[in-house]
């Protein structure tokens, strides 16, 4: 038995390797990125030649993993919470087809939005798709659960969602690694392969099966080692704590919670344990990281005065929890702490010194000076920082690829010039289809692809369009003479402004590729 200091993400990846997976599929996204990166640096994964290349987006990754499952092998697909929106079609329908080889959908939520647009809670998706979900509290549980979850997935032919949150994904702890590592499944086809054909006639039967499975999934939760009822003498309160919320409760009470405490790390909600807690205790406090998923179900639409938590204000309605929030919720004294110094100034993230995006925005700002009505629609990546001073150059940032589609819609409405700014990796993730719409209608708009050869924001992962962007744009139907390349460097500024102006003037779809390597990846290559 070895002990390693691992991030929650890494512990889960090691657990999946030791549970005999054959492939990992993912698109980078904070805080999930380190799962795939662990596979990519794992000697055992290399030795076994497990699949561990990045996919171009989460939907593709989801479907690739389902294909591996269809073939009888164990697969995981990893993404951040908003990535599950992209993958949702394949995800929800994989519950209807069912699985063959075990399939884990690992989703890392980002409450407090450290690096995200929202704090959606992936447990709702598991409930929606009617599949089991796990929510580990510790790195050790993250390591141990893949084995159990894969067995469940294969026995009940269902994908299983694993929900991580930032403070588990990005926190290291001692993890005990088993000596034995399971071997991969042999390739084998589903016993009834027709269930993967979701024609209405088959889908209807599948859906009845999925509904019929639910009592079994509930029973599994009620018997799960991940759900635990810990009795306490003071029954004035009962506490339900899920995932990482359990740790904060333990911390707040110094490891000796006086109240009955129900730890939940497997869903559907274990009804028997909930009934016991409701019977035994006076008031109930629900402590969960993220949205009030459990609390809302217990309260019901008509409310229940015994249920407390984020909806009743004892705990904050939004943002991450912490041990202090638990003390406050129970009206217990919290340790004294100093008030913040008046000298403090905010230090927001910024583009690196010498970053190519800086030169791109300088040129774009200068070009836009000639068009007071121009609007620039932004996208997801480091270049979103172009919204902040000194540039204040973009007007939107919504979701992956939205720059192009929103610019098209705005142009349709007569808001022109309509400009999109999108990174190379975001472009191949979800930007290409929007270009096809614009080409079909020859919409007057300009797409600036800031090509730094990498997925920069998440730390520099492969960008699958590298070296192919002109071909892709031309293949989608953009006229070759309106695919222009500029080099974002101070010495090229005047030339770049001129190119941007020419393409903004053009009353059709134009693409300007602003191309220079990310400084961070360049530095890393040099230091190797």
């Amino acid at each position, binding site marked *: 038995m070895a002990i390693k200091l691992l991030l929650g993400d890494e512990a889960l990846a090691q657990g999946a390797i030791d549970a005999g997976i054959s492939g990992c599929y993912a698109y980078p996204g904070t*805080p999930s990125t380190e799962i795939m990166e662990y596979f990519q640096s794992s000697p055992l994964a290399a030795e076994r030649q497990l699949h561990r290349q990045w996919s171009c987006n989460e939907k593709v990754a989801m479907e690739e993993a389902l294909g591996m499952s269809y073939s009888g092998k164990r697969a995981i697909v990893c993404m951040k919470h908003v990535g599950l929106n992209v993958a949702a079609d394949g995800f929800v329908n994989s519950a209807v087809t069912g699985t063959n080889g075990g399939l884990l959908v690992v989703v890392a939520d980002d409450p407090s939005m450290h*690096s995200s647009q929202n704090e959606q809670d992936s447990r709702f998706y598991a409930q929606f798709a009617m599949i089991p979900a796990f929510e580990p509290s510790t790195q050790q549980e993250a390591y141990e659960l893949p084995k159990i979850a894969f067995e469940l997935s294969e026995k009940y032919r269902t994908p299983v969602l694993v929900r991580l949150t930032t403070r588990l994904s990005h926190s290291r702890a001692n993890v005990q690694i088993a000596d034995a590592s399971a071997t991969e499944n042999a390739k084998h086809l589903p016993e009834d392969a027709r269930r993967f054909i979701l024609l209405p006639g088959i889908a209807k039967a599948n859906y009845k099966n999925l509904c019929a499975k639910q009592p079994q999934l509930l029973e599994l939760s009620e018997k799960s080692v991940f759900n635990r009822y810990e009795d306490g003498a003071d029954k004035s309160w009962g506490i339900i704590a899920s995932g990482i919320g359990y740790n*904060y409760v333990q*911390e707040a009470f110094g490891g000796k919670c006086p109240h009955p405490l129900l730890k939940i790390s497997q869903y559907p909600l274990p009804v028997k344990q909930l009934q016991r807690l409701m019977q035994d205790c006076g008031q109930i406090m629900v402590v969960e990281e993220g949205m009030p998923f459990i609390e809302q179900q217990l309260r019901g639409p008509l409310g229940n005065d015994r249920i407390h938590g984020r909806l009743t204000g004892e705990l904050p309605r939004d943002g991450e929890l912490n041990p*202090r929030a638990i003390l406050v919720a129970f009206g217990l004294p*919290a340790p004294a*702490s100093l008030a913040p*110094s008046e000298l403090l100034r905010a230090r*927001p*993230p910024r583009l690196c010194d010498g970053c190519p995006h800086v030169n791109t925005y300088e040129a774009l700002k200068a070009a836009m000076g000639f068009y007071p009505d121009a609007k620039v629609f932004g996208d997801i990546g480091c270049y979103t920082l172009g919204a902040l001073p000194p540039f204040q150059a973009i007007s939107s940032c919504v979701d992956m690829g939205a720059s192009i589609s929103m610019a098209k819609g705005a142009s349709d409405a007569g808001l022109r010039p309509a400009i999109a700014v999108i990174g190379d990796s975001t472009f191949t993730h979800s930007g290409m289809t929007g270009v096809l719409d614009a080409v079909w209608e020859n919409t007057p708009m300009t797409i600036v692809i800031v090509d730094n050869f990498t997925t920069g924001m998440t730390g520099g992962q492969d960008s699958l369009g590298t070296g192919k962007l002109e071909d892709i744009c031309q293949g989608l139907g953009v006229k070759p003479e309106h695919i222009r390349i500029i080099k974002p460097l101070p010495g090229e500024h005047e030339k770049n402004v001129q190119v941007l102006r020419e393409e903004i003037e053009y009353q059709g779809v134009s693409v300007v590729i602003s191309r220079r390597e990310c400084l961070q990846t360049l530095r890393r290559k040099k230091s190797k």
Partner: protein
Amino acid sequence: MKCDIVLAGVGGQGILTIAALVGKVAMIRGLNVKQSEVHGMAQRGGSVLAHLRLSDAPIHSDLIADGTADVVLGMEPMEALRHGPSLGEGGVIIANANPVVNIGDYPELEKVHAAIKSFPRHVLVDGESLAKEAGSTRSVNMVLLGTLASFLPLPTELFAQAITETFARKGEEIVAMNLKAYEAGRQAAAN
């Protein structure tokens, strides 16, 4: 035994290297470790933060509650001050004296230094000068690690070993420089 450490700085200053080295040494000593850090957007030239908890008992929370930290270490003086509220009774604040001025409204440096000196237990280290003396300003984080280590219940030879292992692939010269910077930081704490 428990020791809760808040590490703060500006993206790129190497607080994760410090956290990883302390975590490694604590593991060798058989302690439980929890080390929480923020990746992603927050690391680009903005404020960064890591929480590091060591204990011989089980550690529950990955985060350190305000008013309970034993040490706050800032690779930069205003970032150290930002996490003053984390500090518990009897705790020590360690700050590199050299500021990173990448914002327009950075406060008057003397006032920031004075605010750090107003903590009952504080160490203000001229990290850049000490690192330069050791061979390169790039090892400021090893200077601060040295200062931090002198407040931790962990043996100094294990730190030397961990530093040697971490930088071994970069050559003996780099290892020697980092060890020298580490030692300078330890001395600074003693003065």
